[in-house]
């Protein structure tokens, strides 16, 4: 068997790959020029790849470089394809699969952090409970009136999700998340 994606319903059906999917985080170093983000996300939608999370910002102002962090979920074969396809985009300098790189470095997973702003409407006695929970999650109050709080919370996506789940019955009103920022542990740089 030479093929890993023997599609039953279409010669093109790469999705019929029965291997289990994995979550990988890709760091994409790009020239910060107009349209570069559209090229990257257009590739994902055009070729039917998943984006679980996307974060982008200029990181090296002098060299006009931006770092795009993409969390994607797919089979290992498709993740390799995504990496090669991204590298074909002309303003893309470097594509690093942080999870693969962590494995090479004999590490577990890359460092991943996300920030969320969470607005909770709470009055009276409920406010104490809300504040207690926020403290337990190390969430910081950045704005408050007598009937609301806005919390800032940073951490792994799983921690944010838990915090949001806890706040939901206590008066959760609004959520804004940044998406994942990630890099590998250790002294090696990319």
């Amino acid at each position, binding site marked *: 068997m030479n*093929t890993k994606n023997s599609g039953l319903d*279409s*010669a*093109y059906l790469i999705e019929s790959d029965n291997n289990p999917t994995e979550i990988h985080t890709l760091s994409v170093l790009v020239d910060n020029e107009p*349209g570069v983000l559209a090229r990257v996300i257009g590739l994902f939608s055009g070729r039917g790849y998943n984006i679980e999370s996307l974060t982008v910002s200029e990181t090296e102002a002098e060299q006009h470089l931006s770092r795009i962090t993409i969390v994607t979920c797919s089979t290992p074969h498709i993740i390799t394809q995504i990496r090669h396809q991204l590298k*074909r985009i*002309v303003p893309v300098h470097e594509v690093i699969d942080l999870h693969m790189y962590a494995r090479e470095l004999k590490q577990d997973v890359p460092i991943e952090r996300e920030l969320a702003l969470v607005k909770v409407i709470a009055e009276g006695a409920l406010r104490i409970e809300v504040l207690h929970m926020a403290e337990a999650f190390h969430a910081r109050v950045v704005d408050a009136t007598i009937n609301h709080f806005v919390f800032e919370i940073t951490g792994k996506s799983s921690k944010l999700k838990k915090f949001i789940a806890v706040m939901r019955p206590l008066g959760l009103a609004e959520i804004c998340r940044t998406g994942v920022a990630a890099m590998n542990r250790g002294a090696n740089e990319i």
Partner: protein
Amino acid sequence: MKHDHKTEEAADRRKMSGAEIVVQALTDQGVKHIFGYPGGSILPIFDEIYQQDKVRHILVRHEQAAGHAAEGYARTTGKVGVMLVTSGPGVTNAVTPLQDALLDSVPLVCVSGQVSTTLIGSDAFQEADTVSITRPCTKHNWLVKDVNDLSRIIHEAFYIARSGRPGPVLVDIPKNVQFAYGIYTEPKSITPRMSYQPQLDGETQAINCAVNLLCAARKPVIYSGGGVINSGADAVHLLRELVNIGNFPITSTLMGLGAYPASKENWLGMLGMHGTYEANMAMHDCDVMLAVGARFDDRITGRLDAFSPDAKIIHIDIDPSSINKNVHVDVPIVGDVAHILKDMIARFRIICPNIKQPDRNVWWRQINTWRARRSLAYRNNADVIMPQYAIERLYALTKDHKPYLTTEVGQHQMWTAQYFGFDEPNHWMTSGGLGTMGYGFPAAIGVQIARPDDLVVCVAGDASIQMNIQELSTAIQYDVPVKIFILNNHYMGMVRQWQQLLHGNRLSHSYMEALPDFVRLAEAYGAVGIRCSKPEELDDKIRQMIVCDGPVLFDCCVVSLENCFPMIPSGRAHNEMLLSDEATNEMMADAINVQGRLLV
């Protein structure tokens, strides 16, 4: 370019208008011909073209034709093809050739006009979001907002179009940028961008491993593709040398025809859906496969899980994303075909004399029994012209002229690939990846512009020729003596064949009613029309076509319901081919199973 050196020097760092910069940059890139159509947003550049004579502009009758003509020009010369269109509809008409060039890796630069920067986003007259529309169908594209970036961007555009895996690029220039004055920078003062550096040399370890496999192979086969031709004359020469050194059987994709001469003993014919029996069987049974500049397209592999089950696969490609995309390969080698073949041959010469090569006579005997199956045989007919016979006669009567062939898309395209022998590269231009009906005639015009003294033939179908028939006017205007050879069967033949195979022979909208009288149509444009419907008259009329010094529309009336065989029905493997003498009506009805039905 030596004689231009003075003007180049004068041009560098000089201030000129954006339109002048465009024409100067084209000149400095060695462009002699461009194909285009004017309009409001591109007028300053057309005005500049009017005032010079270094770059010759060919006016087409539809922007799509400009693109295909530029593609034909690029593929026959190996140079970058250039098209020039206006904003809005000019650009949307250019989308088809851009995608065509993307899928077939043709170097193409499209310069498009855009509404002035102050109007962008206001839904201005003939405004379209060009860079967004063309982003997925180009290798890269640019919107030039500052005239001082213009020359750098055009030079970069040419570099990106022709280097690495070649492809189309687009430079969108707003009208006010064409009028604005800015500094011109010549090509040699441009530094290539850091993020784009195609890898040319293959890894030594992979090359050594590949050569070891090939030396020890009992049943090797070489499967070559368009990448060999794109890599250039060196790659073609080296491929031929490699075949000779190892006495390898070689087959090729549709795009790769001509890289290895069809007249040589080691040639198996084209492979894939309409490939020969021997080529597909050799691919299926081989123990080592060397894929060179080919991408394991679905027309080639057939059913993926039954593709070459026992083979170790070596894959040479300049595009890392082609590796392991459809088929898992054992030895990937990323780089330029010419560089890698050179290293492989050097390695071959060192190690092969030292190891005992297995006997390959058994393999060749096997191949010869497959050849004896004569998969391209067809039943000829004394009363009506068989399409295969027409192509065979066209080949026999034109081959001494070393003709350049283009095709449209459909049965006639496959028959030409099967029955016309290609001995040299860059003589065969066809739309492989995108399958664009309407490609062949404008592409032939592009080829003829590049090769004014050679015989250029476009083999067409009665349906696809009508997709860009207006270009007869272009052919007349520029004295382009292209010969259009229509295999007229009154059907969209390939569509009808698939309807017969897949849809109970219900011929939904595949019959070409109200066909024009092609002879009178040719005459209306001022071209020569020839009609032939009798086999015994065919040779004379083809000769008459060849000697004609203007464009000819040859209406070759062939039998209506002939199917294109051999064929690997969709969803079947290489060794499950349908051959013409086995294709009874029942066989045809059962050829494609439920799963295959969903395939294209």
